[in-house]
């Protein structure tokens, strides 16, 4: 069961610290876990893992393609490698390795991509992944998860380690809003319904879950009741929940910190189109590159804020009543 935090506010702990703690806890229980690095140990916050498990930590150097192939080899012998880097480079530079060395062989590697979308902030367009989910989505059998906060991230790490198969976990490195109560339990492949309303459904992932919750509150002030779903698993997507929600609300807004091509919006749209035709409005990056700026600036510029979700919600509602 998931439960919202009593007060939703900026967490005091960074996402990378949640990751490292969870990885250490998992590795204490499971000696198959190995951390694989590409010279971003400081950036991804896994230094403590390296100190605690020197024999189960490998820093390859700046070689993403090799690191993914190497991880595939480790998993072929039964280990569970967590290979982490910025989301841009671990997907773009190692795409063919994600495809052939790990995916095609149906192996068991856990890829963690940091700096999701606009959270790359001042590293700018070169480091801002708006395409990582789309890339991995096109490879069969990968499970793609984008946790909304540190509580969810920590809970999912041991689950991912235990579950055979290739995973892509999309995350941020720094602090994000604390959404969930610490006792929440999450299930891969099952969206979390955070709020129920019948006028429109806001389906979000990652940092956009918070924006969707804020948007729902704003809509309520205008007598519009919104359902909010944290669709943390983008693949396999929770089709039954989408269909049920689409039938009830008759209007959907997807909210993603990613290109609307090939991401959450497209995945939801596919299910809706095949099952119950209702309007789907997509809040997300409309096929453009990123740029430098604060997260606030980028979210405004790329139209990813709660206010943008409100506008799209109203458009979706107008479309259904037309």
């Amino acid at each position, binding site marked *: 069961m998931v439960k919202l935090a009593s007060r939703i506010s900026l967490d005091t702990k960074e996402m990378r610290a949640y990751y490292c703690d969870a990885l250490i806890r998992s590795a204490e229980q499971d000696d198959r876990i*190995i951390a694989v690095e590409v010279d971003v140990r400081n950036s991804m916050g896994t230094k403590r893992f390296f100190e605690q498990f020197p*024999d*189960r930590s*490998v820093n*390859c*150097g700046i*070689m993403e*393609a*090799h*690191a*993914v*192939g*190497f*991880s*595939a*080899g*480790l*998993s*072929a*012998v*039964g*280990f569970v*490698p967590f290979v982490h880097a910025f989301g841009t480079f671990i997907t773009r530079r190692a795409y*063919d*390795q994600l*495809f*052939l*060395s790990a995916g*095609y*062989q*149906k192996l068991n590697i856990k890829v963690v991509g940091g700096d999701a979308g606009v959270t790359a902030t001042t590293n700018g367009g070169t480091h801002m992944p708006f395409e990582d989910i789309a890339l991995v989505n096109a490879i069969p059998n990968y499970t793609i998860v984008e946790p909304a906060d540190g509580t969810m991230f920590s809970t999912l790490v041991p689950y991912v380690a235990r579950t055979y198969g290739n995973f892509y976990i999309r995350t941020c490195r720094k602090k994000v809003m604390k959404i969930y109560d610490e006792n929440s339990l999450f299930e891969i492949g099952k969206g979390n319904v955070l709020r129920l309303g019948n006028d429109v459904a806001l389906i979000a992932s990652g940092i956009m879950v918070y924006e969707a919750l804020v948007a729902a509150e704003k809509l309520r002030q205008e007598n519009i009741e919104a359902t909010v779903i944290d669709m943390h698993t983008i693949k396999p997507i929770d089709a039954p929940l989408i269909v049920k929600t689409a039938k009830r609300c008759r209007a959907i807004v997807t909210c993603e910190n990613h290109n609307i091509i090939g991401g959450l919006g497209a995945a939801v749209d596919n299910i809706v189109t095949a099952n119950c035709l209702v309007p789907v409005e997509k809040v997300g990056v409309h096929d453009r590159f990123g740029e430098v700026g604060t997260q606030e600036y980028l979210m405004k510029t790329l139209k990813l804020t709660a206010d943008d979700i409100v506008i799209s919600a109203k458009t979706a509602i107008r479309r259904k009543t037309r």
Partner: protein
Amino acid sequence: MKEELNRQLIIDAAEIRKLTIDAMAAAGYGHIGGSMSICDLLAVLYGGVMRDDPHNPYVECRDWLVLSKGHCGPALYATLAYKGFFDIELMSTLNQGGTTLPSHCDRLKTVGIDISTGSLGQGLSVACGVAYANQIKGLKSTVYCIVGDGELQEGQNWEAVQFIAHRCMHNIVLLVDNNKRQLDGYTEDICKPFSLLDKFSAFGFCTQEVDGHNTAEIFDALTVNRQEKPYALILNTEKGHGCNFAETSGFNHYMVINEEMAESARAEIDRKVKEALW
């Protein structure tokens, strides 16, 4: 090495060649050139160098083979079939829909294939992962990885080579099929490899060159007690070697092959084996 064993290896290599050619003739086509250039190496690896068991192909303490030049799968299938990993009859299903023998190596389809390959340049990194994992497990296994000289144009190989060198990994053996040709022609014309020996030596590898069609030389190189340092063996080979119509073809990377061609190649192989053994 013992004369008797070498005679057997020469026979093995000839049988592997014939099986490969037959399978390609049944399919009507195949990557004949690069498959022929590794037949002698495969005969040696599976004829006394590698620890493997056709009846227990996935035993933990086995040696692994990663054929990074995955398009030469048919030569490896011929070797595995010849050694009894699977029924030799399966060879005629090469590349048929639903076959367990696809053109490029697939560990999920073929008994005895350790790692799937096909996109060039990836095998050595995966081999590193396997070798590293075996090391952690304390297994005395060796991972053999065959890469093509053309394939070495892929940059990922050099990431892996640097990784192996830095970690001084000695449970991995890099075997370079130096057949001097790639799909479009001679590597020398397309993108010069310069000295492979110097390149690997610069990375701190113990590097050696042998005649890649001389089974005794290959066997001796692979069974000598080496210092515990990274090892690369460059096998100087000829693309299409041992298959008459491929040897004389200007383009033998991939050829259409009919039964008549296969028959003439088989006869020629038998003749040469007799010559070599007498």
